[in-house]
């Protein structure tokens, strides 16, 4: 394919991965450009559903409502991803129970001293409603239909959550494994450290699929790109970045 | 335009002219008195008083000039102003005739008149009332009256002719009367000229009203 442009829109979770994959694909196929935009999983679904990009991305399962709205969607799971709970660096805690996490995010616990930390108010940082990460987080952590507290600071991307938590003392948030770095403190849940290995082993429970979507059958160029991603080279890149390969 | 100032000034000027005419009428009457009664001091006073009349005219002229320079009158106002100026000049000249009569009176000195004068004072009276009426026409702006006044000049001329013939007769009788006769002739002539002046005044009045210079002779 010559001078092809592949536009990818959607999940901010998938975004860094898609950028890396796109870069690799461009290097292998001169003349092809892969542009990646964020927005969130729901943006990915609606954008591809409306035919306004080549590939939509989501960091959660596609809902039946979405499938019925956009019946032409084809879903490709390209990797899996864990969601890590993070706090500001100044927080001495390194572990919470999943119940504690739930109570903190619903607002029932509002001071770190209640979970053995310092006497400091908890600032909850969350994603906006359409976020795949949030949806997955709510499903996986709030088994029931509990609601994240309205007091939560809402940021529209994984990156923004990282930034906010890293700069706000007493804060707690959640991000994709792909975003983790040492600007924040990563909490163990029920004593399990959130790593790819633990996730693959099923010890770390907060894991969801990363999806790429096309509207109808992909064009040959897109198909080639997807084949590359789903192939061993693509999966290797994903694993390198802390995501879980689909094969695992 | 600053109408008030102009109107006031025009009115004042008209009044000044009328005042002047009053002085001149008095002068004519008194000149008759001095002539008839051989009263030289009155005559002398008349001559001196004429200077004041002249000054009045100068005053009027200067004021007219000032009004033109400062108020820029046009049309009717301007004609009125020109007429005031001319009428004042004419009145001043009439004053000069009265002065002339007074001078003659003095020239006659203590000599008796060659004959008692009768018609001359009548003419003088007529002149005075013509002047008075002309002033009425002037103030009221009545063209009809002005015309009527002017028409009376014919009478003056007739009277004058009669006086001249009469005096001539006297001189014929006695050549020694000649100087005295000549003097009386001058007196009558002065009065006749005064009549002409009044006609001029009436012409001016007509001009003020109609804007046209007409001959009322």
């Amino acid at each position, binding site marked *: 394919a010559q001078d092809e442009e592949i536009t990818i829109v959607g999940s901010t979770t998938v975004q860094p991965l898609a950028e890396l994959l796109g870069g690799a694909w461009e290097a292998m196929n001169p003349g092809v450009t892969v542009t990646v935009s964020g927005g969130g999983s729901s943006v990915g679904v609606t954008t591809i559903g409306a035919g306004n990009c080549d590939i939509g991305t989501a960091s959660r399962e596609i809902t039946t409502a979405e499938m019925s709205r956009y019946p032409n969607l084809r879903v490709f799971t390209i990797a899996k991803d864990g969601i890590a709970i993070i706090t500001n660096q100044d927080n001495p805690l390194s572990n919470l129970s999943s119940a504690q996490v739930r109570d903190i995010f619903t607002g029932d616990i509002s001071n770190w001293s209640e979970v053995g930390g310092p006497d400091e108010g908890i600032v909850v940082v969350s994603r906006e409603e359409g976020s795949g990460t949030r949806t997955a987080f709510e499903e996986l952590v709030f088994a029931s239909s509990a609601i994240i507290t309205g007091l939560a600071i*809402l940021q529209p991307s994984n990156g923004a959550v990282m930034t906010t938590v890293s700069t706000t003392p007493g804060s707690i948030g959640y991000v994709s494994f792909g975003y983790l770095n040492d600007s924040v403190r990563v909490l163990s849940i029920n004593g399990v450290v959130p790593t790819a290995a633990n996730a693959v082993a099923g010890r770390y429970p907060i894991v969801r699929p990363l999806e790429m979507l096309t509207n109808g059958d992909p064009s040959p160029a897109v198909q080639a790109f997807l084949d590359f991603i789903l192939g061993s080279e693509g999966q290797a890149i994903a694993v390198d970045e802390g995501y879980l390969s689909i094969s695992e | 335009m600053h109408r008030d100032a102009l109107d006031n000034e025009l009115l004042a000027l008209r009044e000044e002219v009328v005042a002047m005419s009053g002085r001149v009428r008095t002068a004519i009457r008194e000149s008759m008195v001095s002539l008839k009664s051989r009263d030289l001091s009155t005559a002398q006073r008349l001559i001196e008083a004429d200077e004041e009349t002249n000054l009045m005219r100068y005053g009027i002229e200067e004021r007219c000039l000032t009004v033109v320079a400062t108020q820029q009158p046009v049309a009717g106002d301007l004609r009125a102003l020109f007429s005031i100026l001319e009428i004042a000049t004419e009145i001043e000249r009439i004053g000069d005739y009265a002065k002339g009569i007074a001078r003659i009176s003095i020239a006659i000195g203590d000599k008796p008149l060659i004959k008692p004068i009768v018609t001359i004072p009548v003419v003088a009276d007529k002149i005075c009332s013509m002047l008075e009426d002309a002033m009425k026409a002037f103030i009221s702006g009545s063209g009809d009256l002005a015309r009527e006044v002017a028409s009376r000049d014919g009478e003056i001329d007739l009277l004058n002719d009669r006086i001249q013939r009469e005096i001539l007769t006297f001189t014929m009788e006695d050549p020694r009367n000649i100087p005295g006769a000549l003097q009386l002739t001058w007196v009558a002539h002065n009065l006749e000229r005064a009549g002409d002046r009044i006609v001029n005044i009436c012409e001016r009045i007509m001009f003020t009203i109609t804007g046209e210079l007409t001959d009322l002779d």
Partner: protein
Amino acid sequence: MSIRKAGMTRKHLSDLVMKSIFRISAFASVAIVVLIGLFILREALPAFREIGVWKLLTGTEWRPGQNLFGLLSMIAGSGLVTLGAIVLGLPLALGCGIFMAEIAPAWIRGIVKPSIELLAGIPSVIFGLFGMVVLVPLVRGIDYPGNAGFGLLSASIVLAVMILPTIASVSEVAIRSVPDEYRQGALALGSTRWETIRKVILPAARSGILSAVVLGLGRAVGETIAMIMVIGNSVMMPTAAGGDPLGIFLSRARTLTGNIAVEMNYATGLHSQALFATGVILFLLIMVINSTARALMARSMGSSR
């Protein structure tokens, strides 16, 4: 002499052609303008119909996932942040406008005025950035329950700075455009300069100053990106967690504009329509501000006419 008597018809033709070009452009522009309005209204109508105007306006819950579309918290957010900005910014802005127009010596004005102009030119995202990096940590220093720096106070301060140049320069222009004759007239009557300003110039510039304020209000209510960056975007009624009523300004909130910006891209169906409804409400809010101002102006005029 070389005036040719030619070209009459060509002249007429070019005149006609150009006239139609202008007319078409004008109608197109107006069509666009009207279309924007109609489009937004059309998109919003279903939301009003399905959710109900009252529920939209008074609902405090905004959970699109659950089909809950209450905008009251956002209306409150927008309202409070604007109020805060006005309280903080207006006196400074007006003072600055008066200072530049009437009081400052030329060389001081030569410094202040370009500063204000520069401030007006700075993109809002930079104010947002400044707010995030400088203000939020500062505000976070206030010891108050739930205070995380992000919230109404930071947003108000950012907004106050943003409306400062608008109000200051528009009111300066208004004051400057008061004819010099008024100034001279007042001084010639034996007024001091301050009496001249207070009793003649400011009343004369009243309508201009009012429109400056309205412009400032408009900018405050309409600001989006800087708000997203510092206000926290929480979907909640602003509350004074610590009891102190002023504490409400340490509460996080979301503005109407922020609501649209954050959610628009993925909203579909009723959710999307609810966002259009948010737009319409925002739009109406601006109109209300404008027409109140106009009415106020008319009234203050009327009293002297």
